[in-house]
């Protein structure tokens, strides 16, 4: 009989190996899925994972998309990972992302058509504050009243979506848009446009922010006492209290960071790749970022890689939709499966399999 036995300490090898194994298993099962859907599995896998970067035909268009898609995913996932490390489950990043976009865009549009260089920084701050404020709702309810942050932060996603629908066709609607919902297009307003910094790379300010966030999070979590306290709170809450960590501060800090980063991501997206605040500009990055955070082992460097991989599946998925007629939802399932396999293979980090004779368990 197979039996799991707890390792004396987490295995370093498996910490690194399990995401790779999960990716491999997802490709295998995904391939079978694609075969069922009537596509050649090898071609499908190649289209998703290889062609976006290396195909001569598509890579000119798809390669820059990699950073465009990975930027917000990484930025949000970095924030989430800090909270997850502390055992604080903010799963409403999508709502904070939307609120960041609305606040950032709104702050800019209030000064339309100013061409001051301060417009973009102002929008950035407003976006971060918008996401931060939205995350403070579950944070304050949790610390003051002990309300479950998972459910509150998630409910607020739906609330944010109704606000988005309302402002896109009301407050922020483009006055020159002939009544169509959606804000002014930022592409036509240089001072507020989050433009591509180096042509052909997809690099915009949001991607720069994501890289900075990766480095800052790495320093915070591995060198700074606050990062230590965050980890401690997640691993042993009683020991954290004993060490003198104030749990309220950790909740406020973690939700605040993740909210602000998600808000910034939303603002970068609305003023850059999306170009405007519209009813459905949000593409579910806030939820996919949860997968990115776990796939990256809640480790900043891991998240960087996981974000790029996940961006690849987005782009590859679109390509597969185009070229092989695979349904777009298949990619969503593909991403969900990836998280599932990761959680399954993760068991080997803390446990090892042993063959034992049957015993009363």
């Amino acid at each position, binding site marked *: 009989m197979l039996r*799991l036995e*707890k390792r004396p300490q987490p295995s370093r090898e498996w910490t690194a190996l399990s995401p790779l194994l999960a990716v491999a298993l997802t490709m295998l099962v995904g391939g079978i899925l694609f075969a069922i859907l009537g596509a050649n599995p090898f071609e499908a896998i190649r289209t998703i994972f290889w062609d976006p970067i290396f195909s001569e035909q598509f890579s000119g268009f798809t390669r820059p998309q990699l950073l465009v898609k990975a930027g917000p995913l990484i930025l949000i996932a970095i924030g989430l990972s800090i909270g997850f490390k502390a055992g604080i*489950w903010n*799963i409403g990043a999508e709502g904070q992302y939307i609120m960041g976009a609305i606040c950032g865009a709104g702050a800019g549009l209030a000064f339309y058509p100013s061409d001051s260089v301060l417009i973009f920084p102002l929008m950035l701050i407003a976006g971060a504050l918008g996401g931060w404020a939205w995350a403070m709702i579950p944070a304050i*309810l949790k610390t003051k*009243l*002990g*309300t*479950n942050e*998972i*459910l*509150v932060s*998630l*409910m*607020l*996603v*739906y*609330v944010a979506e*109704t*606000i988005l*629908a*309302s402002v896109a066709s009301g407050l922020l609607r483009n006055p020159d848009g002939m009544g169509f919902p959606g804000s002014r297009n930022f592409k036509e307003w240089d001072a507020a446009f989050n433009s591509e910094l180096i042509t052909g790379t997809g690099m915009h300010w949001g991607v720069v922010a994501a890289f900075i966030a990766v480095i800052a999070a790495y320093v915070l979590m591995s060198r700074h006492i606050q990062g230590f306290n965050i980890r401690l709170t997640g691993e042993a809450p009683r020991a954290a209290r004993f060490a003198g960590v104030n749990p309220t501060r950790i909740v406020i800090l973690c939700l605040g960071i993740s909210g602000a980063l998600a808000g910034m991501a939303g603002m970068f997206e609305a003023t850059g790749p999306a170009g405007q605040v519209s009813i459905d500009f949000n593409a579910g990055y806030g*939820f996919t970022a*949860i*997968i990115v955070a*776990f796939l990256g082992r809640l480790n900043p460097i891991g998240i960087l890689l996981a974000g790029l991989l996940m961006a690849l599946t987005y782009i590859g998925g679109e390509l597969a939709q185009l070229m092989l007629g695979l*349904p*777009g*939802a*298949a*990619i*969503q*399932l*593909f*991403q*969900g*499966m990836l*998280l*599932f396999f990761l*959680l*399954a293979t*993760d*068991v080997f980090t*803390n*446990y090892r399999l042993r063959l034992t004779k049957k015993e*009363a*368990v």
Partner: protein
Amino acid sequence: MDLSSISPVLLVASIMVSATPILFAAIGELVVEKSGVLNLGVEGMMITGAVVGFAVAVNTESPLVGFVAAAVAGAVLSLAFGFLTQHLLSNQVATGLGLTLAGLGLSALIGKPYEGMKSPTLPKLDLGPLSDIPGVGKMVFSHDIMVYVSILLVAAVWAFLKFTRGGLILRAVGESHDSAHALGYKVVRVRMIAILFGGACAGLGGAYLSLVRVPQWTEGMTAGAGWIALAIVVFASWRPWRILIGAYLFGGVTVLQLNLQAAGAKVPVALLSASPYLITILVLVIISARGAHGAPASLGRVFHASN
């Protein structure tokens, strides 16, 4: 605005219909949580149930077969959750989230060909003289069978937990898995059964949404109903009859806001659309301010019989 356009009889009747999906999902999750497991995948299991139920009902032209298929689909999905959390000891929060994300993707994939179709729907039961009672008959006794099944299910869960040995063991496992293990009870097996039951219930709830309430398939149609079901379990302090109250309350809010929108009430539409979610938050806040009552002590904790 014109409130007279809202008929109280139809209002109550539609509240019962709109509460039923959440009621199914919540009573299932209650059993899961009573066994000490937190499954955040309710939304994913619901929407999978919705699409599978719809697809099977369309293909077999039997809504009842659709419901059975939805229950099976929900249970199969929950089996994956159970295997990961109970056998591979994965984090329940993360796994539940994963289940929801995977369920949303899976349902969108399965549902593509069925978008815009109409399914056969359940007939209203004819309860004879009861249905003929003026007012009340139309309000309470003119529904399809699943409305009554959901209420019976609440009663059955209540009786099971309160009066049977199986219910006692389930509560014991949720209260302290170490004690239950020490007394020789099969913690993992009890929990797996509870998880499967919860999955089947969520599947039924989803199918009710796509086969009766709406009734058609649209991507992402559960729109947070699974999460509201989770909140209702907290609201109900883990007591079966309060689940019924909670579900009907939320059904009421949903129906009322739709009616108010239709009646052209002078309240911003955004606020009305957001009201079910805002009220969920409000209820959670009130419950938590009173202090958590009745949460099973082992809820969400990983059980590993180390020696």
